[in-house]
């Protein structure tokens, strides 16, 4: 089994599979409406300072660092 990582620790340009989001239900539902939920593949386009930006379904979504730390992902090779 591969190890679960936090979205906040993923390098730019890496593609990951979302495994678990343990945030408040409002944030979780908003993310789900944007297509970010368990089982979705996303690409990290920016992650240095400030919010993490991910590509999902051809769109770019910024996620605050406080939330990004609650998103557990699996790294794809």
């Amino acid at each position, binding site marked *: 089994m591969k190890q679960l990582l936090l979205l906040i620790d993923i390098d730019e340009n890496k593609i990951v599979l979302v495994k678990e989001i343990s945030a*408040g239900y409002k944030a979780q*539902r908003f*993310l789900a409406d*944007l297509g970010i939920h368990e089982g979705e593949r996303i690409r990290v*386009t920016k992650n240095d300072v*400030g*919010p993490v930006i991910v590509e999902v379904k*051809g769109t770019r979504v910024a*996620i605050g660092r406080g939330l990004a730390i609650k998103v557990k992902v699996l790294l794809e090779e």
Partner: protein
Amino acid sequence: MQNDHIIEHKIVFLGNPNVGKSSLFNLLTGSHQHVGNWPGKTIEKKEGHFILSDEFFSLIDLPGTYSLSARSDEEIVTRKFITEEEPDLVCIISDATRLERTLFLALQTMELTKKIAIFINMTDLAEKIGLYIDNKKLEEQLGVPVLLVSATDDNSVIRIKKFLYDAIHTDKYEFNPAMLLYSTKIELMIQSISRQIEYRSICTEYPTRWLAVKILEGDESVIETLEAEYDLTNVFDKINKLAKSEKLDLNVELSKSKYSILHKIVASSVTGFKDFQESRSDKVDKIILNKFWSYPILIVIYAAFFLITFYASSPIINGIDLGISQFSFIVENWLININSPAILTSLIVNGIIAGIAAVLLFIPIIVIFYSLIAIMEDSGYLARSAFIMDRVMSKFGLQGTAFLSMVMGFGCNVAGIMATRTIKNEKDRISMIITNSFLPCAARLGVIAFLTGIFFEPWLAALLMLTLYGFSIFLVLASSLLFGLFFKKNDPLPLIMELPEYRRPRLRNIYYLTWTRAGIFIKKAGTFIFIASLFIWLMSSIPFGAPPERTIAGYLGRGISYVTEPLLGLDWKMVIPLLFGIPAKEAIISALGILYSTGGSIIEVLKASWSIPQAISFLLFQLTYAPCFAALAAIRSETKSWKLTALGFYYPIIVTIIFTTIVFQILNFVM
């Protein structure tokens, strides 16, 4: 509505933000549109119409939204509208380059109504990146008409109009939205709830299946309305037990299912979609959002924005000023020639013409200000600046979008207050509404530029101006911290924000964006300024023929100056313009003009009458002391509370008196 067109069709545009909804709406309706508010809500309502074959098609542009859950007022308004107003057709606008995301809303809407059409916009961009969309295949699977359009192509407009006409008059198109089947487990639950609903003969304007789905999702608004009339404890107990045993958030589960259904549909009808590749916008963002460069770039862009606004508008303003004073001179001479009574001449020249002038003089700066904002907005930079500023704003307990309402406020506080609508957190929103008037609008920029230019060397004037602006920003941010201590903090939603693609700004959009915002100023503020100017004329002319200090305004100013002179250094002649500036800040300059132009040029007279500490005290005081009446009206309509409106009026006055007293006393002591 017009009565000569008897047949009227109601058509609604619905879609995610940035799909080109407004662009299509503008193309279809042209200038036949107006912006209003939803009754009781601070949600913008844009209505327009076009006429085809003598029939009236009224179009409604709903606010951009990602879903139809009840998380925001936008979503509630949208839902209500679709079910209660029974539009003839709901048009879901979708973006060809982001099909899966933007069709999600279509799937949600299909559960709510049958009368749906899908317009896939931005097909010109799709073509460029080699996307091919088979709309027939989409139609087959979704069961509703799908049109491929582009707001860049005028032909699309003709096709849309023809489509709308045919959709209503012929049965050329089918409206049988496909029923989406969720997983077996969820379907069983939906059926069980549906039975319960039917068993209790619950009757609403919503379809049963949709109600069942919403109950499963835990939609508060639906559940509340139902619970008010029916006993549903059994149903909820069942759902809760199930959700707990499976450790599921059913709301998330349902969204997930919709997306997975969509994924299949899109995969079978679209070819050439390339995921996970660095786009042009990503490349630009590497620079614009860079950890070292983002702030310097932001500062340069905003500095340029303010400088251009200032320098491009000043020749126009001077021109208008010159024109008006000549016109006023001619009118005055003519009135004197025909022996009109002195009071009438004064009313026309110093009251009416001066009032119109006060409005006209601020139009250029407002128009230039908002067209530059529109360029930033349309290019995609404005959203990024909210993103960049999020880090700074969060130090003050605010979100990045609060920054945008501040920027807007520098043009006109009414627009700034209205821009707080994008702030999702209620406490932050109220704090930003109440403090927006601290930020000097274009009218106060006029006063600041005028007075600093008179009293200081250019470099010192520039420095002072920057200091004043900085101070006003400081007040807004510090107040937010202060309010944070008093208002209960409802746990803030973390930042989740879609970043639009960078686009070349389009003239048509800039025109419409500027027109709506500058229009707010011209209509709302315009009437206030004009009435205030007449009022000022009246106060400073009665009794007629008396010297300024013996008019009503003079007595008022002298009364107040007993307090303000020792405290703030503001004598009676300085108090009057400030008093007149309460309803409309534009009045400050015109009042200064009337009071200080006897016995020489206004510049000379002002220089001779004010000490430097007094001038600084005046500048500082007028910067923040009170929202104009138009802004007050905006505070009231945005907060729906008289208490908060009163707070919005008194809070700035108290804060300003405290700070100005401190500054004046120190300056007076050292100078």
